[in-house]
């Protein structure tokens, strides 16, 4: 990676966030790609692949639950950490800073809705 790439370098398959751990920061992908997976009954369910500019781990900013998924680097990836305290303080001063986080969250809800509709439709067609 270049001298000017910000954040931290993660090697291929290196875990950035582990499901079940307590988190106090969110992450923004600077370069490369990362995979979001959920571990369930010993199996890994792939949820999403994120790229440059995408963020993850933002739920930890607003709730005190453990991480809901594991995130791993796909190839070499450079990821920036955003501290919870720094960010919440800034959002307190300037609530509009949360616009993009809310926008991404609402985008994800839309995608989940679409996924749910697809699943329900396939269940109905089986019946």
């Amino acid at each position, binding site marked *: 990676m270049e*001298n*000017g*790439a910000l*954040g931290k370098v993660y090697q291929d398959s290196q875990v950035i966030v582990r499901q079940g751990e307590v988190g106090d920061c969110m992450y923004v992908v600077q370069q490369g790609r990362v995979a979001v997976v959920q571990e369930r009954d010993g199996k890994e369910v792939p949820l999403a692949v994120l790229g440059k500019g995408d963020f993850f781990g933002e739920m930890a900013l607003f709730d005190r639950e453990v991480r809901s998924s594991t995130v791993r680097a796909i190839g070499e990836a450079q990821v920036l950490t955003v*501290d919870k305290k720094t960010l919440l303080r*800034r959002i307190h*001063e300037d609530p*509009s800073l949360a616009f*993009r986080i809310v926008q991404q969250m609402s985008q994800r809800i839309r995608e989940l809705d679409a996924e749910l509709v697809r699943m329900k439709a396939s269940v109905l067609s089986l019946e």
Partner: protein
Amino acid sequence: MLEEKIGPWRDETASKLELESGSRVAVIGGGPAGSFFSYFLLDMARRLGIDLRLDIYEPRDFSLPGPTGCNMCGGIVSESLVQALAVEGINLPPTVVERGIDSYVLHMDLGSVRIDTPLREKRIAAVHRGAGPRGVKDTKWRSFDGYLLELAMGNGAHLVRGRVTDISWKDGLPQAKIQGGPPQAYDLLGIATGVNTSALKLFEKLDLGYAPPKTTKTYIADFYMGQETVNRYLGSSMHVFLLDLPQLEFAALIPKGDYATLCLLGHEIDRPLVQRFLDAPEVKQCLPPEYRVPEDHCHCSPWINVQGAVRPFADRVVFIGDCGVTRLYKDGIGAAYRTAKAAATTAIFEGISAEDFRRHYWPACRAIRADNALGKIIFAITRQIQKRRKDRGGVLRMVSREQRTERGPRRMSMVLWDVFTGSAPYRDILLRSLHPFFLGRFVWEIIAGIVARIWSINGQKH
């Protein structure tokens, strides 16, 4: 004539002043404050379905190397700003960031110590504001200011390449004029000219109640070293010097791509002081042996805002960034972002009258001003530490001990990190440095240093 000077805010019957679709906005100055203001104003307007026409007036061509394309600064984008921008969706690319900084090295006459961030992550960006220093051999990186200006233009801002030479009022609207062009009327003026300009006189003459910031002279120089030498001698650390030199508040050597930027802040930095600094052994050890500062290196003595402007707003006018209120000595680009956002949210959600800016924009400026007052205390304490050998020894011992142990609190390291990088409010830093554990440990390290010194002197005698 008098009416032209006074402007419309004295008219008590005026209806609410606000931006609506079709409103025209002029932003004077396309440095960080002007570009951030334009970017966020247009972004928020779009979210609300307001269609604005926004012109940014900027005479500089940021794609040119040397003084013509440069807004003269150390080029450190602070940790807090890098994070906030990433959340805003502005991820500074490696084509702009010449070096990610993950640590700093504190140099004193008693020794040097490297301080890593707990996360060991590159969260500070070192950039050039223009396309590089005068005489740059190969422009491998893009200008930071140019990058921000392009972002604003990507959001719909229209660039007017020219210096505003006159501001006047007509029919209750402010007008901006460039050399050779007719005056253009606007609904709102965002003024972001910085302090290194004669334009501030234009605003004083308008009788807006605005008084420009107080400033002092600083010094910046760029030394060509080549990427490999920069890697080897400076690495990805910012090098900070606590030397007992009068007038000097802060000295740093910042690694960039092929260059190292020297940045001296203090009171009226002059040539003899610069020379004394460069001759100091602590500085020489950071440069290759036999390194000679090139005769024709790019250097400048810009003004820095050390006390914010008075009343940086009026009806239809708001001053942002350095020409308004900024942070003392540190994170000026971060303050430009904060004031730009506060001004943009006020203009979009509250209105553009003096009263709107007073109620919703001024608190952001006031918070920075209040924090600067605490910053002054911190810099006064740092100056005392700089002067006293025993205190310098205490700092060095405490930081060295913290850096040797993986776990445990890193009180001094974090206080120094935040003082030097400008990443935290001065209030936080002061509170942490007044904590009894911090003070107790510091006093203990000073005493331990004195005792160790007495022992070694006695040992030498016997």
